[in-house]
């Protein structure tokens, strides 16, 4: 049959496809070990060294190549991503909770929220800056205007993740809790929240990473202090050195650390859920 030929062919294709996805990254990783400070961001590798990693941390003797302005930018980006994560997850959980009951205008509200991830970042950023400059008359900052624009972007993701989780949620446990006289807030804390926790975790991960790497919205909305993506963008216009590649490798490792924490928390919460289910089976 044709699929006998097709399947191995597609298998090879997927291999090539993954090579296409990883190609630039492999090259970037190799070039981050270029000799410094004369070695450029291209082949051939003159001599393997960790110069550019040391350069990143300011451990090299001064040279004509300025260090990447990432220190403060990194802290700003982390704080901004954290603020965005908390806000959009809270908004997302609340909105998704409301969607469990049918109400008039649900379609409209749904599209209003989803619009946030549909509108190109450059427009959100532009509009926010225009409003801040010309109507409200405030200065733009990464923690004010950029934060507002970031939540506009990440809230829809959190909302959709929570909606997917709550769609599969069995409401009878909550009703049982209410009928036993437990207050709604306590029910949410003790019953609902632990059950939807994996979703909350995913929403948080989404919001954090999207905000941490968010660039077009931040470019216009953040004013004079740079966040991490803006610091990287700043290097675009000047000569590129392999320190930016070393930095790319470092941020990827950081992302993986974050992903691992997420994985561990997820596994723990799944295991706890299983344990609870087993206890219920026994009793």
């Amino acid at each position, binding site marked *: 049959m044709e699929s006998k030929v097709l399947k191995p062919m597609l298998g090879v294709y997927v291999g090539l496809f993954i090579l296409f996805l990883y190609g630039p990254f492999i090259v970037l990783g190799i070039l981050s070990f270029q000799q410094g400070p004369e070695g450029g*961001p291209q082949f051939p590798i003159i001599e393997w060294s960790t110069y550019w990693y040391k350069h990143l941390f300011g451990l090299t003797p001064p040279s004509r190549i300025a260090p990447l302005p990432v220190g403060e930018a990194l802290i700003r980006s982390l704080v901004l991503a954290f603020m965005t994560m908390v806000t959009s997850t809270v908004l997302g959980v609340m*909105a998704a909770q409301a969607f469990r009951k049918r109400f008039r205008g649900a379609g409209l509200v749904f599209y209003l929220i989803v619009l946030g991830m549909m509108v190109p970042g450059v427009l959100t950023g532009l*509009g926010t800056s225009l409003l801040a*400059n010309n109507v409200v008359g405030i200065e733009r900052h990464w923690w004010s205007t950029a934060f507002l624009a970031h939540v506009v972007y990440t*809230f829809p993701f959190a909302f959709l993740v929570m909606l997917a989780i709550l769609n599969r949620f069995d409401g009878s446990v909550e009703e049982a809790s209410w009928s036993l006289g437990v207050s709604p807030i306590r029910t949410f804390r003790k019953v609902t929240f632990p059950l939807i926790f994996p979703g909350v975790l995913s929403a948080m991960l989404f919001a954090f990473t999207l905000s941490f790497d968010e660039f077009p919205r931040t470019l216009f909305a953040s004013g004079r202090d740079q966040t991490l993506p803006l610091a990287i963008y700043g290097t*675009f216009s000047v000569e590129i050195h392999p320190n930016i590649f070393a930095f790319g490798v470092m*941020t990827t490792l950081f992302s993986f650390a974050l992903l691992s924490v997420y994985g561990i928390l997820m596994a723990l919460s799944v295991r706890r859920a299983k344990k609870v289910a087993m206890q219920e089976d026994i009793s």
Partner: protein
Amino acid sequence: MTTESTNRQKSNAFRLLAPGVVWMILFLVAPIMMIVYVSFWTQTTFSINSTLTLESWKNFFGSEAYVGALWTTIRLWLIVLAMTFLIGYPAALYVGLLVKSKTVSTILLVLCVIPFWTSFLIRVLAWRPMLGKEGAINIILQKFGLIDSPIEVLLFSELSVIIGMTQIYVVFMVGPIAFMLGRIDRNIIEAARDLGAGFGRIFWKIIFPLSLPGVVVGAIFVSVMVLGEFATSGALSGRKVNLLGNIIVTQVGSLKWAMASVVGVILTILLGIVVAGFLRIVDLKREI
């Protein structure tokens, strides 16, 4: 259910929704309205005032460079959309449908997503040492004797922008398609096979139509991102390729807010038409 409890639930839903809805109206809808409004403001060299005029709009459509950017944006969007579909669909077909083991399929999907944990801008930048005259691709091709002299058109051209964008956005096409393919009931395919249908027929009559919602979702993702792009074209074309996004950035950079707004409105309209068009092909609400 009693009216009282229904009422309580209604006010409950309202209280839960209010913060999110207010946020979106104030910080998303209002800014977009503001862009529309400012596009009619009067721009002078150093300042802008709120006297309404069509001047910036006339300037846009009177300038070959600006209108050219509109066409470049549409052309590049169509090419990248086609590329992500053509390159992404076979991969999604394998991952979502042909791989029998759930574990292998998950591993492959995760492998596809991992590059996204590197900063977007660094991913863009990483294409430079790939495509340059002394870049990895040229070196490899020369080593294998496939070419005599390096291909120069690979970097700082429209081609480099297309390659870069395709690699960066193809996963947004693969994901939704693989998801829809994974949901297809294998019994339908078995039944068709038992009735004597070949793979081509099964593909066109069953698999492709059932995966169409995934294609549409993927196309919307890719379109939204490519139409609003400016970083990839800026970094990989050496300013040869100007998209609408690039014009907005340049205009804001020289404090020409009115012109930036005009381009913003045109971009919004373009995007609205594209997304509405895709939603006409497939009724997403019914599919999900």
